[in-house]
């Protein structure tokens, strides 16, 4: 198998499917070609023509469990704004990218979970509600068609992680606000801003209010200098990767509703690109503006996920 295909198989999360071969019609109808299944089911699925990774219930349970992604209306908790609370695991992936993760996604969340795990390139398995098979299958198929990219993540500042819960919550709020950071063991010289919770500049007491804390970091960065800005939604989280010449932007819509005309601003010398939108396919960037050290464009519509390749 070609290395590129191996990479894709590794990057697209695996559907953990403990159900028997009698569910084959649903699996086939969903277009699913690869499964993670218990040993006693694996042979049956292989005979049905699927590629199968054998995973026991214990193996699945031993993985680090993730919350079902999405939003919940918690006014005043997520932030002083009216933005809903986003349940997202990106910060956990950044904190521990080599950990093996598992979602037990309730109905309606399977495709979003798949997109989230894919965007961060982690090893994740997803157990889904059978009703989600069509949407999960469609998402998996879409993710597998994306052009291969393996670019380093972009960050505007560093966060020194001591592994504590409070730093985790700070990272959660920073990620939710599309404040792009690297997780560091100590302050990194390449960043103008290094967040060290507990330092004089970032007292522990301030971190107890992560939302306000995130606003402080945002004001230090300034919106103009941020590598990524999103307009037209408060429920989309972006993950930006780039080598300076090319970039891939993953956009994950946690809101559960299609968003039309999402506006994106990415700093850098990019002149154009293409969007790959789950449910739509390849699409041109709309209302493109290149100026002032940044590229701006709109996406016609984004459902759960889109990738944008810039060059």
């Amino acid at each position, binding site marked *: 198998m070609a290395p590129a295909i191996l990479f894709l198989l590794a990057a697209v999360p695996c559907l953990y499917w403990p159900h028997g071969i009698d569910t084959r019609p649903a699996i086939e109808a969903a277009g699913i070609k690869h499964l993670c299944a218990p040993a006693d089911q694996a042979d049956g699925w292989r005979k049905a023509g699927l590629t199968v990774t054998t995973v026991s219930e214990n193996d699945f349970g031993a993985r680090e469990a993730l919350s079902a992604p999405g939003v919940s209306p918690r006014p005043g908790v997520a*932030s*002083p704004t*009216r933005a809903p609370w986003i349940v997202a695991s990106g910060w956990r992936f950044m904190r521990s990218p080599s950990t093996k993760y598992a979602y037990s996604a309730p109905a309606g969340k399977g495709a979003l979970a798949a997109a989230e795990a894919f965007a961060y390139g982690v090893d994740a398995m997803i157990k889904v509600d059978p009703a989600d098979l069509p949407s999960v299958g469609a998402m998996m198929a879409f993710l597998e068609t994306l052009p291969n990219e393996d670019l380093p993540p972009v960050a505007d500042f560093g966060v020194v992680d001591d592994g504590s819960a409070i730093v985790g919550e700070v990272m959660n709020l920073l990620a939710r606000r599309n404040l792009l950071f690297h997780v560091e063991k100590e302050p990194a010289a390449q960043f103008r801003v290094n967040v060290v919770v507990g330092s004089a500049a970032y007292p522990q007491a301030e971190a107890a209010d992560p939302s306000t804390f995130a606003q402080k970091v945002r004001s230090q960065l300034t919106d103009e200098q941020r590598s990524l800005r999103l307009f*037209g939604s408060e429920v989309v989280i972006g993950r930006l990767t780039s080598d300076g010449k090319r970039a891939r932007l993953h956009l994950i819509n946690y809101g559960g509703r299609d*968003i039309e*005309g*999402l506006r994106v601003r990415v700093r850098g010398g990019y002149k154009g690109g293409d969007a790959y939108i789950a449910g739509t396919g390849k699409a041109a960037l709309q*209302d493109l*503006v290149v*100026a002032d050290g940044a590229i701006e464009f709109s996406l016609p519509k984004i459902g759960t996920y889109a990738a944008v390749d810039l060059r």
Partner: protein
Amino acid sequence: MHRRAFVRLLTAGAWVKAAGIDLIAKGKPAAPAKPGLQIRADLPTLKIVSRYSPAAVPGMPGPYPGRVIKVKSDNCVDTATNTANDQVVREMMAQGMRALTGAASTEDAWRRFFAPADVVGIKVNCGGFPNCISAYEIVGETVRQLTGLGVPVSQIYVYERFQNQMDECNYAAHLPQGVQTVAAERANRNTDNSGYDPETFLEANLFGEEDTRSNMMRLVSKRLTKIINIPNMKDHGATGATGCLKNIAYGSFSNVARTHQRGKSHTYSVVGTLASMEPVRSRTVLQIMDGIRGVWHGGPFARTTKYLFYPKQIMFGTDPVAIDRLLLDIIDNERKAHGAISIWDRNPASLKIDDGRARDADPNVNIIIREPGHVEFAASLGLGVADLAKIKVQELTV
């Protein structure tokens, strides 16, 4: 690819600064642009991005700054049924337009503003459905006058921000076939931005929100050549009253609800600033304030008749500030008549943050500290005359 366009965009931003917006763009205590106006110091930084240049005579305040024609009629509405009288309204409008312009005929009065080649937007207000929206009779007569001048129905757009509100009001049923009834978003869900111009916007971080832009409707920036503003006389929980300025500003831009929340309102500076943005400012050439009905509390909504009242008047002008300055007193006087706190009340004891039920039940409850000073602030941007002593009102009775 659009490098040049973007540079123009920034250049246009520089023009706006020259016109006085820099007073707020810097976020500093502003010296009043007009003598005698006292502008507050605690204003947020607002950044305007527009590549549109102003007209030689911008529509606001237009040719009649400080001038308001008030036409009253006891017979314009049956208060028992809340039904307007079409014939009386038509006569009120005819007299009002002639008085405003000094034209000998009603047709000539309308011709002062519109030509057959114009693409005309009629900014209605649907927020007070079902009891207090821009009257079908006024909107209908406006369309009749435009078509009488030779403006094709296909070049007339009745618009609001939200399609679900337009569907409720169903203006199309009251208008000639072919008049466009349009909206920018299906509903107020912050998921539909395609109806807005991504290159014309106000940028501001007011409460720490991530989405810091409010974009102008594409219809307004790309299609319309003229706009007629038809607001209602309504109380408003964040601005004190909502009239010409707020209807055209918050009704033509996206993502504006973010300006007022958790007891605090930035409408003081944002309403006028949005209204001052090009091309809205230049293209909004006529203000027709629908005061047939009014809402003295709980606005901008009017799901019940509990706070409905009947000013029985229509105001005409080109100066939105002057009309809105009069509106503040109309709403406040009605509130006083009912023993309610003033729209100018800033007493924290009156404030029950985010408690809409308490506000709806008790007119002495605010959910936000209101900002009726937004009218005076708009005057500081050159949008009109806020000084009552300088506003000339001509009153007519039908």
